[in-house]
């Protein structure tokens, strides 16, 4: 091998640089970072238990959407028999009025971009 030492050193530098995104997070301690959601409501309980909401709120919202738009059924009854109006902007954002600190924080972290707000209006967005 001609210039073996230089080639190997070059390869090692290359490997370090190309894996930069992986080890940087470990070294800087950002790998363990999880978003902290601010809950700004006096209500003790969401429409369903928190665990379910955390894991499956998207399915629930899809059900609500189809139910309201397609079946004209606007009342949701949860497992405890409590009734809610199926409304993203009124029921959900009525409690979670801090969209930026609640919805967006997590959505940004997992890099999903739901298109809800292309049409639905965030209450404080009134000035547009």
């Amino acid at each position, binding site marked *: 091998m001609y210039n073996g030492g230089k080639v190997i050193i070059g390869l090692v530098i290359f490997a370090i640089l190309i894996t930069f995104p992986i080890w940087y997070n470990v070294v800087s301690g950002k790998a363990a970072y999880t978003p902290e959601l601010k809950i700004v409501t006096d209500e003790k309980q969401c429409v369903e238990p928190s665990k379910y909401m955390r894991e499956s709120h998207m399915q629930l919202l899809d059900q609500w*959407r189809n139910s309201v*738009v*397609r079946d*004209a059924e*606007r009342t949701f009854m949860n497992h405890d028999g409590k009734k809610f109006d199926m409304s993203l*902007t*009124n029921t959900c954002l009525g409690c979670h009025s801090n969209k930026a600190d609640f919805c967006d924080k997590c959505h940004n972290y997992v890099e999903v971009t739901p*298109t809800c707000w*292309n*049409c*639905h*209006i965030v*209450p404080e967005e*009134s000035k*547009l």
Partner: protein
Amino acid sequence: MKIDRRAFMKMSGLGALGIAAKPVMDVVTKADLAEASGRKASSGKRLAMVVNLNKCKEGCTDCIDACHTIHNVPDFKNPKDEIKWIWTEPYERVFPNQEHGYIGKGMMGSPVLVLCNHCDNPPCVRVCPTKATFKRKDGIVLMDYHRCIGCRFCMAACPYGSRSFNWRNPRGRDSSGRPFIKKINLSFPTRTTGVVEKCNFCTERIAKNLEPKCVEVCKEDALVFGDLEDAHSEVREVLRSNYSIRRKPGLGTRPQIYYIV
């Protein structure tokens, strides 16, 4: 009784034919009945509207303004991009083939209020590839904007031009910085670029047992809204006591906006 092979084959052939013909006959007889009675078997509700052109005041835009305000209908100030839920067209364009050279001055060229006809046999529903447009049990032809892919088949299919496409972002602003929606109604969503939209017969108000906004704000009582399946409803009464016409009835879409001319 002894049957030979030939007779057995003949009988089983006839039997198979009979079984195969049954579903076909079912469809044919049912379709005939529905056509003959002029409407489907009662589903309990059939919402419709009557527009009384004798009462509708020329130059008044109360219903149009009210509808477009509460439904966040943008104004792009450009007929190419225009979004319309309820608007006016000249008489001869609303009722083609019903005009003639000697028609009264009050008719020819005078504006007629038009909106989605919420047809009983809606072509827009038939062509929609994603079922974004659908007919509700109470007869309202509604759009699910979540499903609309903006293919505009429905716009081509609608013979009344009741549908508009969002070429531009309705939440945007024009070159001089004015928003396309003057004042946003927070309790109703806007639409987004790339979806088709149209009149929804105020489903959000009907859910609260309110009349459509256009009917509510009309000071002349020119608009009557109600259930055609209810024999005692106001629409039925108005239709009983007045002669009414519909737009392009020959197309078979069975529009549910009736006009008293």
